[in-house]
């Protein structure tokens, strides 16, 4: 029963990821795409942890940890870039 629920959750998370990707392709502004990327990262993190629970291997949780730390670095860089651009546009 619990394996069945984990399997259902796997496909559910994949559907969430596809919806996020649609927003990433269509999103009119850069902020939309950035939020979509952020949510995609969270969904992937949930997927990795789920997979680690199913396979019962601790190494898989390390992947999720490293992944989310370095992903956050990337979002921070893009968000800082957007902030600087907004400040420049206000100054002009």
């Amino acid at each position: 029963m619990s394996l069945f629920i984990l399997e259902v959750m796997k496909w559910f998370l994949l559907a969430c990821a596809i919806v996020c990707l649609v927003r990433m392709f269509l999103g009119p502004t850069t902020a939309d795409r950035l939020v979509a990327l952020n949510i995609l990262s969270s969904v992937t993190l949930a997927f990795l942890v789920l997979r680690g629970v199913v396979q019962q291997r601790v190494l898989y949780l390390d992947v999720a940890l490293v992944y989310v730390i370095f992903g956050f670095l990337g979002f921070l860089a893009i968000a800082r870039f957007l902030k600087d651009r907004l400040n420049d546009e206000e100054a002009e």
Partner: protein
Amino acid sequence: MTILLLVLILILGMFTLLSKDLLHGVIALSAFSMLSALLFYLLQAPDVAITEAAVGAGVSTVIYVWAIRYTERKDSSE
């Protein structure tokens, strides 16, 4: 599952190549490396997935955004 992920990775790569706004391309590239890390993980290579997540999703995004900050954001080539 693997085939679905490969199709998504292909679409993201094409979007990265074809987008005129380079920042959107960088965002798509970050998602690309994210999904390829997931693919390595599903193919039971967690150490490769760790490296891909660290280098692809983190460091290369920072470097690309850093480069765009000092150059042009829009792709002006026709």
